[in-house]
């Protein structure tokens, strides 16, 4: 890439802005050319890296995402909305007519039936999961790109991180439901650290056997659908079991 600084765009679809706010906490060695939240002189032009927050939940967002894909060399989905469709993807399991009935004039709504992860609309090069993403994971990702290393985003179960940090297992100790065995590490095992079970905001880890986990929960008399109705409910392996 020579001496030229890499150019970056930070984009937002349907989301809460929490993931892009994490960019205020990292060292950014690249030139940010587009960022609606951070600067007024944004230019929507070709970029080396596009970070995309949010799910695709309207036709306008779909069009915008096509354009972002066209203009970026590397497209990185950041956060549970972009990776799994977000908490708003719970509507994907409901009857859309029913969802709309919250509104007196449902015909006026310009919103898609489903809230989709961006990889169901365009090709995605990397995913950084989490609700919100973790600042250290983002910094490691940026540093890897800076040094032309292949970025390694944690994709192993939270249990591994939890054990390394020396926390007592809340399932063993208290009989609590904990999604640690099937959830991506990265948050620092925050929920077990305060004595509660992980509720899955980093989404299913690689190779998560959600079906086996569900049947184990059922065997223990701990299963309820609500456990999986979180920010990553529409991630593929979870979607299958709660549909």
């Amino acid at each position: 890439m020579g001496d030229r600084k890499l150019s970056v765009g930070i984009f937002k679809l349907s989301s809460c802005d929490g993931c892009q706010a994490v960019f205020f906490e990292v060292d950014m060695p690249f030139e940010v050319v587009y960022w609606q939240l951070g600067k007024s002189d944004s230019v929507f032009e070709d970029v080396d890296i596009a970070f995309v927050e949010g799910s695709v939940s309207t036709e306008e967002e779909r069009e915008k995402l096509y354009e972002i894909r066209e203009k970026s060399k590397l497209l990185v989905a950041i956060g549970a909305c972009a990776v799994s469709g977000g908490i708003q993807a719970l509507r994907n399991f409901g009857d859309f007519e029913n969802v709309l009935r919250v509104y007196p004039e449902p015909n006026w709504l310009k919103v898609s039936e489903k809230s989709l992860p961006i990889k169901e609309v365009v090709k995605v090069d990397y995913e950084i999961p989490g609700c919100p993403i973790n600042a250290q994971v983002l910094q490691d990702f940026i540093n890897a790109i800076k040094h032309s290393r292949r970025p390694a985003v944690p994709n192993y179960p939270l249990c591994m991180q939890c054990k390394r940090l020396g926390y007592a297992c809340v399932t063993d100790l208290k009989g609590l439901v904990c999604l640690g065995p099937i959830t991506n590490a990265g948050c620092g095992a925050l929920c077990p650290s305060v004595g509660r079970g992980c509720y899955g905001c980093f989404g299913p880890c690689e190779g998560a056997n959600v079906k086996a986990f569900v049947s184990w929960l059922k065997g223990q008399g701990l299963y309820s659908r609500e456990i999986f109705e979180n920010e990553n409910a529409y991630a593929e392996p979870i979607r299958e079991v709660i549909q």
Partner: protein
Amino acid sequence: MKEINPISRVEGLGKIVVKETEGRIEDLWLEIYEAPRFFEWLLKGKGMDQVLDIVPRICGLCPVAYQMSAVEAFEKILNLQVPEHIRNLRRALYCGEWISSHSAHMFLLHLPDYFNLPSALALAKERQDFLNMGLRIKEAGNRIIELIGGRHIHPINIRVGGFYSLPSWKKLEDVLKLIEEATVLAEEFLDFTLHLDFPDFERDYLFVSLGGWEDYPITEGKIVLSDGSQIEKENYEEYFEEFQKPTSTAMYSKLKDGRHYLVGAVARLNNNYRTLPKDIREKVEGILPIKNPFKSIIARAVETLYALREAKRLLEKYEGGEPYVDYELKEGEGVGITEAPRGILFHRYRINREGKVELAKIVPPTSQNQFAMEEDLKAGLKVFNQEVLALAEKIIRNHDPCISCASHFLKLVRVP
């Protein structure tokens, strides 16, 4: 028609539409086009503690506010009184969010406007000290939230009755040190904001906030209006109503008698400055009430300094205790209203015998300010004439709108 789209350095997606005839600006207004996320639908059937994990996702910049308004409503339904040490920790937690959110707005979004620069990074090239100052103050706020809430964006430690666990002494000591350093900087910054040049622009707002309490209100007190009237929290819906315009995916809010109003740091300061510590009060008394929205940065600087001192006071007297109190499930309906960084945040829930949500209604501060922001634009056109375009984005940015919050609770959406 011309557009300023999207409005930059604000949370969420909105635009300003300009109507021109023969090169002359005739009118301009605000359009919010952030997609709705149907929270009122998806909260139905959820247990109360799960609601406390879901509602922060409405806003990544003020998640604590959503948790605190919801937990207040739930504990009212359950008739549950939490002990003083939990009340104090919640207030300290909320101070953390004011510090974090206000410093993000002041230093990273708003301050470049006073130097006519496009971003905090551009400002840092001239005044690196401001960026360092802002980041250090924000860090103190973030660390307070982490200490008590476990994570500063979407905290994980909040439950009905208190917390899952209480902070450790070691971490608390570390955070106190950060607070002390940040307090010195916040005081310096407040003095700086008092000497900024502000455009000549005043408006006759009706200021609405919590108040009528012995201290500066965060979750306490009644709703107070700057015309002298007071409203009990549970009667909010008798006095305020939401309405819809075809141009926005967020609801507007007004008093039922037709008046629009302003919530947020300026409203809180104007309505409650008498409760501030003497030295802070004396710094600003002479310029109150603030009617110039460009001076909102002063109100945020005052509140940042106050919140740092208040968090220190509360954490210093922390003595530990039980993390939460138990309760029995009860059905019922309840209201929670607390002061989010951007103003009063209304929640109402109906809970059934199993402790599940049957109805949820939320009115965020930015919906309530939408009417006033639009009136600011129209007044701006009269005062600044054709120069208004250069200022239009700044006029909106003065109010630190949080558009993701605003657009999730619309009853009616854009007309085709």
